[in-house]
């Protein structure tokens, strides 16, 4: 047990890293793309534009149902993906609707479909840009014309997979540390409990020996006869 505890004590050196990793996770969560887009683009416009006070009226209405929300999202999603003029105006109702019904399965399905279509469009745009040789507009540098669609999809998938792997590694690392810590404290608690029990029985025995209460016969087998 002692050796096991020492192992956990060694893990205590990782304790300083734990807070660091938790902070990393928090920062990662806060700096997700949606948050960045919302913080950088939507909020300044919301503060400085008067017409924005009228926005998201029905989306934030208390009597709006899921069915109507889906109808609105369907229209707004098309506008966001296809219309560069009114795209920014649709962010507010879209975000407010997505925040409002996060547990609804229909809305989650909508989000999945939306992301799928958006990624497809992004890929097509990138391909078109790379095919036209417009390297300034493209963030991914594909070898134009040499790679097939499948290969480029693979590259994108690898990119997203790497992002996921990084995130998963961080989470796994934090979970392992937390698990070790928990085990360590449980073991310590166990040892303390055993020691307290021993001490208590010793005190009771001493009391019986010197004061007569509880009687020593309690500790002898003859008491039960």
């Amino acid at each position, binding site marked *: 047990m002692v050796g096991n505890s020492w192992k956990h004590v060694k893990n205590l050196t990782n304790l300083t890293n734990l807070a660091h990793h938790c902070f990393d996770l928090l920062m990662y969560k806060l700096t997700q793309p949606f948050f960045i887009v919302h913080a950088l683009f939507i909020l300044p416009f919301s503060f400085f534009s008067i017409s924005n006070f009228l926005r998201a009226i029905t989306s934030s209405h208390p009597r709006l149902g899921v069915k109507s929300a889906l109808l609105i999202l369907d229209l707004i999603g098309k506008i966001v993906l296809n219309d560069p003029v009114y795209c920014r*105006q649709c962010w507010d109702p879209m975000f407010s609707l997505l925040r409002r019904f996060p547990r609804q399965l229909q809305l989650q399905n909508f989000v999945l479909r939306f992301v799928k279509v958006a990624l497809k469009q992004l890929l097509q745009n990138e391909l078109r840009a790379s095919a036209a040789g417009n390297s300034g507009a493209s963030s991914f540098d594909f070898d134009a014309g040499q790679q097939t669609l499948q290969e480029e999809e693979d590259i994108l998938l690898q990119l997203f997979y790497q992002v996921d792997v990084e995130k998963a590694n961080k989470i796994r690392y934090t979970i392992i540390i937390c698990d070790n810590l928990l085990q360590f404290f449980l073991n310590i608690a166990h040892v303390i409990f055993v020691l307290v029990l021993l001490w208590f029985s010793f005190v009771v025995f001493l009391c019986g020996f010197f004061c007569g209460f509880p009687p020593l016969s309690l500790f002898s087998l003859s008491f039960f006869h």
Partner: protein
Amino acid sequence: MHDLLQFFQQQHQKAQQTQQAQGSAQGSGGSGRSHMITLSTIRHIVKFSFLYAQSRTSTPANGNSGSSSGKVDERSRCAALSLLAELWLLMDVSVTDGDEKKRAEVMKAILGLLKRASRESPSLTVKFTANACLFVLLEAFVQNQRPYAPYVYKTLIFSLVESKNDNQALREFMMASMSQSMNVLRQIPVGILIEPIIKQCSLSGYNEDDLNLL
């Protein structure tokens, strides 16, 4: 006529104040009440204003036309429509006597007239006035939880949807008023409004006002 209505309202308010001052314990509830505001009086005024509000040329069927210019006609029709709306509000609050059937008849007639004026009238001014009256009525009815609120709301939705083909200014006015009503009245259902608007947007395009409402 508007002065007469205002006079009625003042009388009614005074009567209410005196009633409150005397207290309901004395039992003479009707003593301070103005006897002028009765259903028959209201019906008389409604008939009179119907003569102006119904006619396209805004001249009473048997009366003498005061002026032949178009502007005056529109103005008198608008005045008649707003008078009817005010009457409805007054009748809803103040007039408690008479048969319920007759009251419903009067209200239906006023609503029908406002509906026709808001949708079928060739004049833009009349449409604006009728729709504004309907919005005022909607706000009052929803806040007081009256049974006529759904009818008015439905009329306004139809009017809003049809205004897209009419005039841009009217459409903007309707959208702005509807947004304002949505902001103020949080208990009205939005599902029946969203469905036709979304359908219309996906069929015939959209603009900033449509998206503002969403």
